[in-house]
């Protein structure tokens, strides 16, 4: 996290200079909190019109994002999931790379969501606790006795990947494939993840590989169903019929990607926040009953999803601005989560904060399907970290993914001392 408001304090930041959709800037500086604060203060619905971006309204206040999210009929979800500067050789924004929950609308969205949502309720997820504990213990055991490690690839990435892969019944040998393809789909413009010369080609190849793999799972689970997510999807129905193949394979891809990207980044970002705020780390170690609240504060602080877009279906008004039918809005969740009209001392990382009205999981129709699972994974992980990590410090800069959609952290080199579990 860069110094809060560093640019603002120098008095140089103006609305014209605000840049919040350039992925290179996210790599260099992390989240543009100073820019978002300026927008919240001076132009909470800001018409962003630049030569290299398809125009959109940047929505930065908590109340407006909640208001828009509550009206999926007035503000519908579209193919283009997020706004970024136009780059050569990227897929056309209106092309359906996947057709899944994120770009569906009611009533279709609810019908599709209903295929698996019972598997993500608090009660269903609670039954996974022992498995999550076991995986977390194994992951941390592997760095016992080590001096240094890359916290992302060796810790944060492993738990959510293993959990979602086990839920799908995917054999361990194929987990690295799921990890690679998720990265390529989410970060195709990042040189570390690109598998081809162009963004379009990287996405296209990753999708084909995903689809091929999931087709095999579908075939197998239709022949011999098990009690796993793959079987629930393969044999699931919408309006009395099996899911069409494109929607079915897209659903697999969505859950695999969403299930391992965001929790990974919340875990990395959370530990990073504790390294930056040693008083809060000591507080957590002293009082582990704070873990659930600490996890909510990590979610608020890190907000792994940067933005989602919506399109207005009729003329309306947001924050005093006239929004016309067909206009696109981008909802910046990390900005809402630092809104000074909702959170006291929003730029303070306070693990005892309560109530914590963050919207890191969104709200309303598209509220994160996996929220309960993510919360449980983060709680188990931070409970064990607080119990077992005796010392931790950065040994180099963190490396961010090139994206203004998901706030990914690719690498975080740390010196870490983990105790063996008693």
């Amino acid at each position: 996290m860069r110094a809060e408001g560093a640019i603002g304090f120098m008095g140089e930041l103006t609305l014209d200079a605000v840049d919040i959709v350039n992925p290179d800037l996210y790599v260099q500086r992390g989240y543009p909190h100073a820019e978002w604060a300026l927008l919240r203060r001076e132009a909470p619905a800001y018409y962003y019109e630049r030569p290299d971006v398809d125009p959109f309204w940047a929505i930065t206040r908590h109340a407006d994002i909640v208001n828009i999210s509550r009206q999926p009929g007035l503000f519908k979800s579209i193919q283009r999931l997020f706004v970024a500067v136009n780059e050569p050789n990227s897929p056309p924004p209106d092309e359906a790379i996947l057709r899944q929950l994120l770009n569906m609308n009611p009533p279709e969205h609810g019908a599709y969501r209903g295929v698996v949502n019972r598997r993500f309720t608090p009660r269903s997820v609670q039954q996974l606790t022992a498995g999550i504990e076991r995986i977390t213990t194994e992951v941390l055991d592997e760095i016992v006795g080590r001096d240094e490690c890359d916290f992302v690839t060796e810790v944060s990435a492993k738990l959510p990947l293993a959990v979602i892969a086990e839920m799908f019944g995917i054999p361990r040998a194929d987990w690295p494939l799921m990890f690679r393809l998720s990265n390529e789909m989410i970060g195709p413009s990042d040189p570390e993840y690109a598998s081809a010369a162009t963004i379009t080609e990287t996405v296209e190849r990753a999708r084909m590989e995903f689809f091929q793999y999931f087709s095999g799972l579908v075939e197998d689970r239709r022949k011999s169903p098990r009690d796993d997510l793959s079987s629930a999807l393969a044999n699931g129905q919408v309006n009395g019929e099996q899911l069409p193949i494109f929607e079915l394979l897209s659903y697999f891809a969505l859950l695999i990607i969403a299930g391992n990207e965001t929790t990974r980044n919340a875990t990395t970002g959370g530990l990073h926040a504790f390294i930056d705020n040693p008083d809060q780390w000591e507080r957590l170690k002293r009082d582990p009953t704070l873990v659930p609240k600490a996890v909510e504060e990590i979610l608020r602080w890190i907000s792994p999803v940067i933005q989602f877009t919506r399109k207005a279906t009729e003329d309306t008004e947001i924050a005093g601005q006239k929004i016309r039918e067909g206009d696109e809005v981008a909802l910046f969740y990390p900005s809402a989560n630092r809104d000074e009209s909702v959170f006291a001392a929003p730029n303070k990382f306070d693990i005892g904060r309560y109530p914590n009205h963050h919207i890191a999981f969104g709200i309303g129709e598209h509220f994160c399907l996996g929220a309960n699972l993510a919360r449980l994974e983060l709680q188990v992980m931070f409970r064990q970290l607080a119990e077992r990590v005796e010392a931790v410090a950065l040994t180099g800069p963190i490396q961010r993914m090139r994206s203004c959609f998901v706030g990914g952290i690719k690498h975080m080199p740390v010196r870490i001392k983990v105790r063996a579990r008693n």
Partner: protein
Amino acid sequence: MRVVVDHSLCEGNGRCVEVAGGIFELRDDDRSYVIEEQPPSSLRAKVELAVSLCPRQAIRIIED
């Protein structure tokens, strides 16, 4: 004040039970039910917190 939960929206995320356990409960079908349909006005703050925390916006207050 009357409290209702829209069961076509509710997914049993249970935030309402956390903040207003005497008014809502989660049942075996993974949905939240109102057990105190007309709570006294002294509990209004709790109900409003439940309304605002519900991720699916499934809770409504109907004024008498």
